[in-house]
């Protein structure tokens, strides 16, 4: 108990005279703000993309693609097997007792990014009659839905924001002429929002796609997945991969983003090393500036440990303050900004998880940078420190 009290007293004393060391302390704060600001700003791209993918998945939906296909684009599901998949056990039915299943195709068409006029691809997805029933987040926000059987398209607000020529009323060059964009939709900031959508059968004719790319079904309940998967994989007439939609997108987003994250961490670590040296420097200076004060405390009977702890806590406090400032700057500059990487449109995100990560980094740097100075502070002989000028 006395130990805790001692620690508290020494720390309070310590924090009280922090203003006297304002400029030195700023080194740690600014250094950590730079480290965490850069780290979080870079990771916000990854986080945003992950988030968009994870939002697209729904544990109550399953996706069926051809065996060993790891993306929809390279998968083929023939018209002949589609009914077998849709009638499998575990698929939910609508009020007309029709399976809630969407036979989809996914093709890419060329487009130009608005920000730099660079040539990109845009995903063009086919919706069957149950396409919107399957996805409760899907909402038309401007214009209207395409008519089934018509050569019409609707564009996600993300696609419309990032790529040129996708506003309601614009016309998109398709293999059989130009199709009008008749509506804009949102779907809860998921990856679908960066795509454009038309009627599956009409699209298949236009793009000469003889078969579907995937079938997405609504399960009667998330727990019905295993029965559904078993029924399809046990059927010798089918050669398909069945995945819960959440797992499917988790896998895709994991493949996608690891490398950029590694670059972000590498840059973060380099910067953190710089900040660490700065922290060491500042804390050594702080300890030597407070030499007599510390010695006086020791002479009054305060232990070495509370003194060491107070030095550490000071480093942690300054470092975490810096991290929070860095995170705040990154949040103001980047959070919620729409961006696109390759074919994906998403919103940069400084999530609470990322801020937490920034704080953990700050604590690690502070502990590493405060350890040696705190030991020095604790071990300096009292008499010598009192004599020193």
């Amino acid at each position: 108990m006395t130990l805790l009290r001692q620690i508290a007293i020494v720390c309070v004393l310590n924090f009280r005279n922090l203003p006297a060391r304002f400029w030195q302390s700023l080194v740690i704060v600014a250094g950590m703000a730079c480290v965490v600001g850069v780290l979080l700003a870079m990771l916000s791209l990854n986080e945003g993309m992950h988030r968009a993918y994870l939002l697209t998945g729904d544990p109550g939906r399953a996706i069926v693609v051809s065996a060993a296909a790891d993306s929809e684009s390279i998968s083929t599901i023939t018209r002949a097997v589609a009914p077998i998949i849709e009638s499998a056990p575990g698929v939910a039915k609508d009020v007309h007792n029709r399976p809630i299943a969407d036979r989809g195709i996914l093709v890419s068409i060329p487009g130009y990014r608005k920000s730099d006029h660079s040539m990109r691809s845009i995903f063009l997805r086919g919706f069957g009659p149950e396409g919107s029933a399957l996805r409760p987040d899907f909402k038309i926000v401007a214009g209207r839905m395409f008519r089934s059987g018509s050569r019409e398209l609707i564009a996600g607000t993300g696609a419309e924001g990032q790529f040129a020529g996708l506003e309601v009323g614009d016309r998109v060059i398709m293999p059989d002429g130009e199709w009008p964009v008749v509506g804009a939709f949102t779907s809860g900031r998921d990856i679908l929002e960066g795509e454009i959508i038309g009627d599956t059968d009409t699209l298949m004719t236009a793009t000469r796609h003889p078969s579907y790319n995937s079938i997405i079904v609504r399960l009667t309940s998330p727990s019905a997945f295993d029965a559904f998967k078993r029924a399809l994989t046990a059927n010798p007439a089918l050669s398909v991969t069945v995945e819960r939609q959440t797992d499917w997108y988790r896998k895709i987003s994991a493949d996608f983003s690891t490398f950029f994250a590694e670059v972000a961490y590498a840059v973060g670590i380099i910067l953190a090393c710089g900040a660490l040296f700065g922290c060491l420097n500042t804390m050594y200076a702080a300890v030597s500036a407070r030499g007599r004060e510390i010695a006086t405390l020791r002479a009054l009977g305060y232990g070495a440990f509370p003194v060491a702890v107070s030095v550490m806590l000071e480093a942690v406090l300054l470092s975490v303050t810096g991290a929070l400032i860095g995170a705040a700057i990154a949040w103001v500059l980047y959070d919620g900004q729409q961006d696109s990487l390759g074919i994906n449109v998403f919103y940069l995100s400084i999530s609470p998880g990322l801020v937490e990560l920034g704080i953990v980094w700050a604590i690690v740097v502070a502990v590493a940078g405060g350890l040696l100075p705190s030991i020095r502070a604790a071990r300096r002989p009292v008499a010598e420190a009192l004599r020193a000028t």
Partner: protein
Amino acid sequence: MKYFPLVWTALSRKPAHAILTLSSVTIAFMLVGLMIGLNTSFERITELVRADRIFVDPRFGGALPLAMARQIAGHDGVARIAAIGVVGGYYQDQKNNVFVIFGDTGRQRTRPEWPVTPQQWKLVRDNRAGVLMSRLQAERRHKKAGDTFVVRAPAFDKADGTRFWAFKILAVTGDAPAWTDGYIEGNFDYYDKSRPPAEQGNASYFELLAANSSRAPAVAHAIERSYANSPTPVLSFTEKEGFAGGTAGGLDVATITREISLAGLVMILFLTANSIAQSVRERFTEFATLKTIGFTDRLVTWLVFLEAAAPSVAGAALGVALAAGLAAQVPRICPPGWGLPAPAMAPAVYIAAAAGAVRLVGTLK
């Protein structure tokens, strides 16, 4: 120069302090060096890609009939053409993406800048199931000439019903500077005859060289227009247009590298400014002594300035040297398929480092 001992003594009085300052400056400049280098590399690639090379892709996926090659070759302004087949898949592990590009006999002429000898081109023409593998790819996959190389390509059926594409590596060839991920070059005829009968006679895309690079965009446009209402609409663009807007999948390399560098510089600015302020604070009496024995105000200021400049300049030099060393390692540690160019440790880096150090020193004064 005669004041050097004074500066040196001042620095060496607190060696730990001086070394720590030097270390953080070094690290920050290493980062700045890497970032500027990376940016320069991307700029250089954008310059290196050819303005006269045109790609003709199927606009909506699928393939283009080989017969189109003859029509396109007859287009005004087209000098050379090659039909290309592509097989994409992975090697051993799903994460190990591989693309094999199969060029026909015209490929040698549409890739004149590639460091591939006529003998090597002949090798791949004469050995149908063989490939040329660039050094970067060979190193990454631990392959040498004579090895076999099997690509599993789930989306590329073969006539024999399998999806395994096996190749013999004929030679390991030099890397093309603008082709930062290396290349694996195969034989188009082998590709074509390996596909299921229904899919034979098609190319994945065509690549051409225009007779005149300034007219290339117009030629590309004309080709695109002439197929606009055909059963096979195409997307036709020059290599330069294809690279516009950065290469790293749409990442704005210039902005990212600039912002990271800025953060690094801000950090050392605070650090160095503080370290010098601290050393001045601690030595008021010493400066007073110097003045008493006849040092002018100016001279004392200069001494302090030099003291601050020493670790900054040394740190900048060390940091840039470290960055240069690291830069050489970048392509080797990148995962396959990414193709990040080695940061070119261009003069820009050295100039920036010098400018950074000077500016830093300026603010301290």
